[in-house]
């Protein structure tokens, strides 16, 4: 028989779970696939288009999206892997057509809101690739992009040599905010990556988040600092939007 403490725990868990539910699911039909988008609506004039690429399993991102929507920032999270029935491996990114991503950007811009792109890790390649294509076609511009812990090396870095980045780096003029953990070797590559991104005209700002490792919000072994920063990720994103010049948050 369940005691009062267990019942309370279940109640809290249910309450917690209900808080992270997407408010709506939107289907975007493109030439190549039907993409399911989790939408966290908001009244404000800012829309954050995130590419989690995780078949809908992004728990921390959903909580952050919910929190942002409560603060007036609308969040869309398209499930790119699910749309193409791709496994969650890095090589899947190459199988996601740029046109599909730009079709989602077009749909987001139809809301009339200012659209910012966000992605983490190797998924950041998607938004750079799409932004470049979007600009090349002379469309209404996207407002900026947040790259969290970008992992954009083309190959394993050779000690002593400047790394080579994936082709999408240095092709867009989008204002970019780079966020990197303080406890990852990648923080030492921030200046080099910023320099590469600036070559195409991007205004790049970078910030190191102290005491956290890369992907801290996805880690099973998160430490106290990482738990704290994960719980404050919505604030971190709002600060990033501010650095990108957004005043309506």
């Amino acid at each position, binding site marked *: 028989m369940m005691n009062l403490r267990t019942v309370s725990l279940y109640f809290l868990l249910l309450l917690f779970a209900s808080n992270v539910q997407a408010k709506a699911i939107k289907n975007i039909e493109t030439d190549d696939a039907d993409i399911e988008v989790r939408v966290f609506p908001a009244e404000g004039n800012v829309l954050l288009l995130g590419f989690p690429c995780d078949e809908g399993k992004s728990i921390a991102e959903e909580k952050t999206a919910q929190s942002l929507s409560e603060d007036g920032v609308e969040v869309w999270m398209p499930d790119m892997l699910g749309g193409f029935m791709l496994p969650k491996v890095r090589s899947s990114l190459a199988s996601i057509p740029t046109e599909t991503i730009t079709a989602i950007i077009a749909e987001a811009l139809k809301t009339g809101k200012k659209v910012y792109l966000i992605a983490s890790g190797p998924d950041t390649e998607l938004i750079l690739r799409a932004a470049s294509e979007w600009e090349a076609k002379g469309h209404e511009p996207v407002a900026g992009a947040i790259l969290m812990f970008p992992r954009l*090396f083309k190959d*394993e870095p050779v000690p*002593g040599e400047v790394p080579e980045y994936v082709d999408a780096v240095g092709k867009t003029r989008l204002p970019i905010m780079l966020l990197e953990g303080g406890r990852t*070797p990648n923080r030492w590559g921030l200046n*080099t990556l910023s320099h590469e991104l600036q070559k195409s005209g991007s205004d790049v700002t970078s910030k190191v988040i102290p005491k956290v490792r890369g992907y801290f919000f996805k880690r099973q072994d998160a430490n106290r600092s990482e738990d704290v920063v994960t719980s404050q990720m919505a604030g971190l994103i709002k600060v990033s939007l501010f650095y990108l010049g957004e005043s309506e948050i």
Partner: protein
Amino acid sequence: MYKQVYLYILLFSLAALSQGTVLAANLKPVTDEVAAPSLTLKDLQGEIHDLKDYRGQVVLVQFWATYCGPCRKEMPSMNKMMTKMGDTPFKILAVDMGESEAEVKPFVSEVKPEFTILMDEEGKSIEDWRVFAAPSNFIIGPDGNIKYTLFGGVEWDSDELIEKLKALAE
């Protein structure tokens, strides 16, 4: 039954062989004359070490961090490597990448490295040496030039690596 045992032996042999091949492939020779950048840092006891003071020896300069899984895993094999190198003039300078002493000391007291740990909290040497990932390794010859580089964790006490390093010292 015997057939099955032979098959297992064959598979194990192939696995061992392939591991050796991977090690050889990972150690990237630097064919041009490339002088090692300068490196002057304090160890955990506050003593200053300058790479140029080790001229005439083979030096493994490694960039590592406690948050790097492969770095933690390979450190015990670096202790064994020190033993296997015997009288060969050889030194390891393991540069911690931007952590504080408070972050490094608990791991050091656990592993008890028989080589020098250097601290670079500001990351100056990391930029000078163009290090973008961990562990990043540079093997410096007695002439002060970089002879090999290697990215990623390895078993440093493997016979293949020991032979290569001993050959450099000759």
